[in-house]
């Protein structure tokens, strides 16, 4: 009898059963197994399952048209699909959740700085990439097109925009604002609003120190979706109280294989009141209505939505905003029943 013990639920045991341990660690586990019939049983079961997994997945490959056809034959696609046969990894949703799909006229490329380069000196800038391409100056796409370029606005940061601009710090939203919905609600006006924000904050944020790092709130389950692509410290930085919003620009140069991200954090404690214009006001109203209807917020928020949407109604040339306000009032009446 030795004093080595291991739980049957220890990942080390699975690694041992699958032959993944170094000889030294494997020897340690073998000693521990002498003390635990349960652990020995677990190892046996894991090895049986591993054999079954290999058999099942090998057989699946043989019966899978992708694997079963010659490499240069077209893959058979069924008119009657087979849900569950292929379950793609949902990285696309991670990207969608993390991003607003606004096309940008800003991109990276070119060997030298263009005379039309967007000024960036006043903006906190972080390269988040393992790509090997050297960092370039900003140029305009029409002058220096890239293979791909897209931008994002990080959601937690944009939620803070709504806090600061529209609620005057009275209440923080409980959920994370889906900027893509916001873009749907007001595009292309939102784009113009954000361009104005960028221009003003480039001036306002000059000389500001970087955001402090705050702990990641444990109850923000939605952030965990991003664990694979962003570290918690990155997320924490984004939700730091002094970060107003973040633009992320993803780009891939034509002859470079790995896409890269650049992130611009717009940091300022002072938000010009003129930014809270009718467009962003109405967009926030539309988004909040969506949250209410998903029961993310309480029904008492209807009044706030009506207030915002009336304030952001503007000229309402096509009467759609007026219809929206009527819709919210009907929803409020229904919720009260």
């Amino acid at each position, binding site marked *: 009898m030795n004093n080595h013990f291991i739980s049957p639920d220890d990942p080390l045991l*699975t690694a041992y059963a699958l032959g993944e341990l170094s000889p030294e660690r494997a020897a340690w586990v073998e000693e521990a197994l002498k003390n635990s019939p349960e652990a020995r049983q677990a190892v046996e079961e894991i090895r049986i*399952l591993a054999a079954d997994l290999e058999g099942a997945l090998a057989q699946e*490959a043989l019966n899978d048209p992708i694997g079963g056809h010659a490499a240069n034959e077209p*893959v058979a*696609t069924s008119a009657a699909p*087979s849900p569950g*046969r292929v379950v*793609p990894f949902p990285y696309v949703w991670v990207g969608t959740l993390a991003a607003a799909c606004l096309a940008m006229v800003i991109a990276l490329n070119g060997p030298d700085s263009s005379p039309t380069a967007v000024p960036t000196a006043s903006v906190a800038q972080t390269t988040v990439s393992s790509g090997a391409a050297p960092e370039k100056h900003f140029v305009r796409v029409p002058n220096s097109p890239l293979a791909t370029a897209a*931008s994002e606005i990080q959601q937690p940061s944009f939620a803070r925009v709504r806090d600061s601009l529209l609620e005057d710090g009275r209440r923080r939203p409980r959920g994370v604002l889906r900027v893509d919905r916001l873009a749907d609600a007001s595009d292309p006006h939102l784009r113009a609003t954000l361009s104005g924000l960028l221009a003003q904050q480039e001036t306002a944020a000059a000389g500001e120190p970087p955001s402090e790092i705050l702990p990641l709130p444990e109850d923000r389950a939605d952030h965990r979706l991003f664990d694979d692509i962003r570290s918690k410290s990155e997320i924490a930085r984004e939700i730091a109280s002094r970060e107003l919003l973040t633009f992320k620009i993803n780009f891939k140069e034509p002859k470079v294989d790995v896409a890269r991200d650049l992130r611009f954090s717009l940091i300022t404690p002072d938000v010009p009141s003129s930014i809270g214009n009718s467009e962003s006001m109405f967009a926030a109203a539309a988004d909040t209505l969506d949250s209410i209807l998903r029961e993310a917020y309480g029904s008492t928020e209807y009044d706030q939505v009506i207030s915002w949407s009336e304030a952001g109604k503007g000229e309402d040339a096509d009467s759609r905003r007026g219809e929206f306000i009527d819709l919210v009032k009907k929803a409020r009446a229904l919720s009260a029943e």
Partner: protein
Amino acid sequence: MNRATTQHEHAGDFVRAAVADYQTPLIRYAARLIGDADRARDVVQDTFVKLMSQPIADVQGHLAEWLFTVCRHRALDILRKEGRMKRFEEGQMERVSTAEPRPGKALEYSETHEAILRLIGTLPANQQEVIRLKFQNGFSYKEISRITALSVSHVGVLIHHAVTRLRAEFAAQQP
């Protein structure tokens, strides 16, 4: 025949052998990442095009790992790009799924294997990916770590959780 020509032919043989050995598993892997078999083929083609530009010495000894890593990067690039530029269409994944097994082949599936495949399909996506890399493609924890950019311990935990769940659920299904 000069020395350069010999090296070129040697490189051509190397790539041809790589295509023969890895094209099918790479397409299968990319198809699961993207949900589209045709585009998966494009991804794999790009992967081999990149292989052609690599010095053989840089990839020899870890060719499979290199190919899966490049393939994964390209597939995720596509997803990221399309996630922004085109809203993902609901149901698209199902429409581009592979077809049912060829007639007669279905009978070859054992009940055990069928049950296991169904259970694998219920795992979280990241667990499915590492399980397939481990048990379908034969990669070690360390190799999976390099392909997926996860730590080795993270890979170990994902596989452990998946195996634990599969054991429990498979046992529960047994009479």
